């Protein structure tokens, strides 16, 4: 009888060693592959930011209807002419009907010189963007751009344009991409978000307090909790449909303001800022509730016991002990939810955002447009130039969101450093 060897034979050991090498190699391969997939995410983000800034800056070819130099009088350039001369130029170059309409809007005597100069620019010089190039092309292929331009638009001149600038923020909407702006969109976004916060914050925090501090573990309260979790998963466009049916249509007397005698003459239907704000409030309510619940749950029970021990009532305990301690967490959650609402587009399209707004929104009963809606509408236009204005609006929106999120992070950090 031969004794079984205590260890593996030489051949088996060799095999084992081979397998082991192979296994380690395989593990090393994945060590490289796994981070590579995270790089895809980083690349996507880079490409997105590159794409947006690429479209926001670059050369444009501008063709003037009337050369501003030909409007100079006796060597004085257009920009330095006195007001009377500018009015005369205006009168000579535009139709009589248009002149009368401008005079009717605001008499020329009362207009400032800058205002008249703007009018001359807009109506007489009438610059039109005939072509635009991306930042990438503008930096690397200036020669080709100039050659293209000389061939296709000999009358045009080249200028470097930053599509996002102060004028872009201040200007009204215009069908002319050169002078259009996001002023009504920014104001609309701010109004809408104010309404959203006014409804969602108190209700959301109230619901969270109820669920965390008052609710017994019974069927109704469990239903409410499950329901809130489910609502967080409902697509945003469904909220838009709900808002259309309830706020825009069923509650039209309230949302249009006719019930209060406050109807905005430009709308007089339910497609108003109020409807939009309430729709977004319903949308972010579950997020606010869930975040506020977490913040309230994190308040140590000893604080509550101390308050009860001193004879505080339930509400006194919540108001003066629980809420102040949970507030930073609640606010962080709310800011995150609000930044989600600011970026929402789909529900507002369904609720009925306006395609064109000539005057600033002035009350909750005004027609509305918001930044994301404006981006969507410009992107959907066939003309390529509006891609540039859309990119500029995206930069404005991203900066706004970044500011909000940064403030949320600051708040969170302050909170965590204080509690340590």
């Amino acid at each position: 009888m031969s004794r079984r060897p205590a260890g593996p034979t030489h051949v088996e050991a060799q095999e084992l060693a081979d397998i082991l090498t192979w296994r380690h190699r395989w593990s090393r391969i994945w060590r490289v592959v796994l981070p590579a997939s995270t790089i895809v995410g980083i690349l996507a983000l880079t490409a997105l930011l590159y794409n947006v800034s690429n479209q926001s800056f670059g050369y444009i070819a501008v063709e003037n209807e009337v050369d501003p130099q030909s409007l100079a009088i006796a060597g004085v350039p257009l920009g330095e002419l006195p007001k009377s001369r500018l009015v005369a130029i205006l009168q000579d170059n535009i139709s009589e009907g248009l002149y009368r309409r401008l005079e009717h809007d605001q008499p020329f005597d009362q207009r400032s010189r800058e205002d008249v100069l703007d009018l001359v620019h807009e109506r007489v010089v009438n610059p039109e963007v005939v072509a635009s190039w991306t930042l990438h092309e503008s930096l690397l292929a200036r020669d080709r751009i100039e050659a293209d331009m000389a061939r296709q638009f000999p009358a045009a001149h080249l200028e470097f344009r930053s599509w996002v600038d102060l004028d872009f923020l201040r200007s009204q909407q215009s069908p002319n991409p050169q002078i259009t702006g996001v002023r009504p969109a920014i104001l609309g976004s701010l109004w809408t978000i104010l309404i959203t916060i006014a409804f969602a914050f108190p209700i959301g925090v109230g619901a969270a307090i109820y669920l965390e501090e008052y609710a017994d573990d019974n069927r109704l309260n469990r239903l409410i909790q499950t329901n809130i979790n489910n609502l967080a998963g409902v697509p945003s466009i469904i909220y838009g449909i709900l808002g259309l049916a309830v706020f825009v249509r069923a509650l039209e007397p309230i949302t249009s303001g006719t019930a209060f005698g406050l109807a905005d003459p430009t709308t007089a239907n339910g497609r108003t800022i109020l409807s939009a704000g309430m729709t977004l409030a319903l949308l972010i309510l579950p997020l606010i509730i869930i975040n506020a619940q977490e913040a309230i749950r994190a308040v140590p029970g000893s604080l509550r016991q101390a308050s009860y021990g001193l004879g505080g009532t339930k509400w006194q305990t919540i108001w003066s002990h629980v809420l102040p301690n949970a507030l930073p967490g609640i606010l962080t959650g709310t800011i995150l939810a609000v930044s989600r609402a600011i970026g929402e587009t789909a529900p507002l399209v369904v609720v009925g955002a306006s395609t064109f707004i000539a005057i600033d929104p002035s009350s909750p009963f005004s027609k509305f447009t918001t930044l994301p809606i404006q981006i969507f509408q410009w992107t959907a236009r066939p003309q390529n130039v509006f891609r540039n204005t859309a990119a500029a609006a995206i930069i404005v929106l991203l900066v706004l969101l970044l500011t909000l999120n940064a403030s949320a992070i600051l708040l969170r950090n302050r909170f965590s450093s204080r509690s340590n």
Partner: protein
Amino acid sequence: MDLSVTQAEEFSHRSADLRRRTRWREQVIQGFLFVCGAISILTTVGIVYELSRESLAFFATRQWENTNKPLAQDVAPDDGVLVVGTAGRPLEQGDLLRFGLQGQEILRVLEVSGTAVRVERGLDGNQPEAMRQGIQLYSANEVTLLAFLTGTRWAPHSGSFGVLPLVNATLMTTAIAMLVALPLGLSVAIFLSEYATRRARGAIKPVLEVLAGVPTVVYGYFALTYMTPVLRSIFGEGIVQIYNTASAGLVMGILILPLVSSMSEDALSAVPRSLRDAAYGLGATRWETATKVVVPAALSGITAAFIIGISRAIGETMIVAIAAGAGPAFTFNPFEAAETMTGHIVRISGGDLSYDSVDYNSIFAIGLLLFLMTFSLNLISQRVVRRFREVYE
């Protein structure tokens, strides 16, 4: 002295009253807080009620389609027989008719014999009308649930109500998005929870958070102005249309990646350390530990993440509205334009939509279908977590 005695008496009297009192203020506050909580229930009830109500209206509406069949003789209000021309689509017994689109009266065909059509006049309480010859007859199409769910053409204004082209496009963009989001999301999750150092996590997590926080309309812009040109330069402009489901789906995958990876990572991190240590102790490599021990242990959470990702992709709107195309098309080619359910809703409601029109009602019918799809997926994911969760300790 007297004074202090009264004070003491008063005090003892007050402190003796220890009966439970109803605090009205507290009650009112509690009531208000309950109402706040109940608003979420109202929202759900509102969604279900409004979607169902308007969808019922959608399935009850009659769509009038021109048969191109003219009246051959004038009709008086008391005539029971219409004489019609030979042109146009033949009438059949049971058809509902109207005289042109101006006619209010609705008639039912009882019998057709050649050009003579015996009809029942004034259905639904409408008054019989007199009509002149030459008016064309319209017949009614009623939208049936079966036709809605199985039809392959969506053109509400010409009487085709098959929702399949829209559903098909939605499923295609979702499938493409998940092809991107599932492998990448899971890889990112495994990397973050099993491999990454503290510093790598600190660098990658914010990127994912930013990706998740970018508004979807920006992703739509990105799909149209970046992804589509890239696809066109790879596959050729003749093959890839300007609007196509592939670019929308790919970009949607990037949007959903952070959701899938963060949910999966949570599930992976919940697996106790002892399991990993046991695997390492048996000589497993890092990769073997991750795939053979940790991932199977966290499978329920990962599955839930996938299902939630699918649900999110189905409901995603702006990317498909911008990049996937405007116009329903029943195609399986990802490089062709096809409108999804959500994209259709956005396009239809873009203008000033008039209430109770076919379009208005169809939004609700499509919305109900969308709601049911995402809602059942969400329920399934909750089930999965509850049923198959491995509980340690």
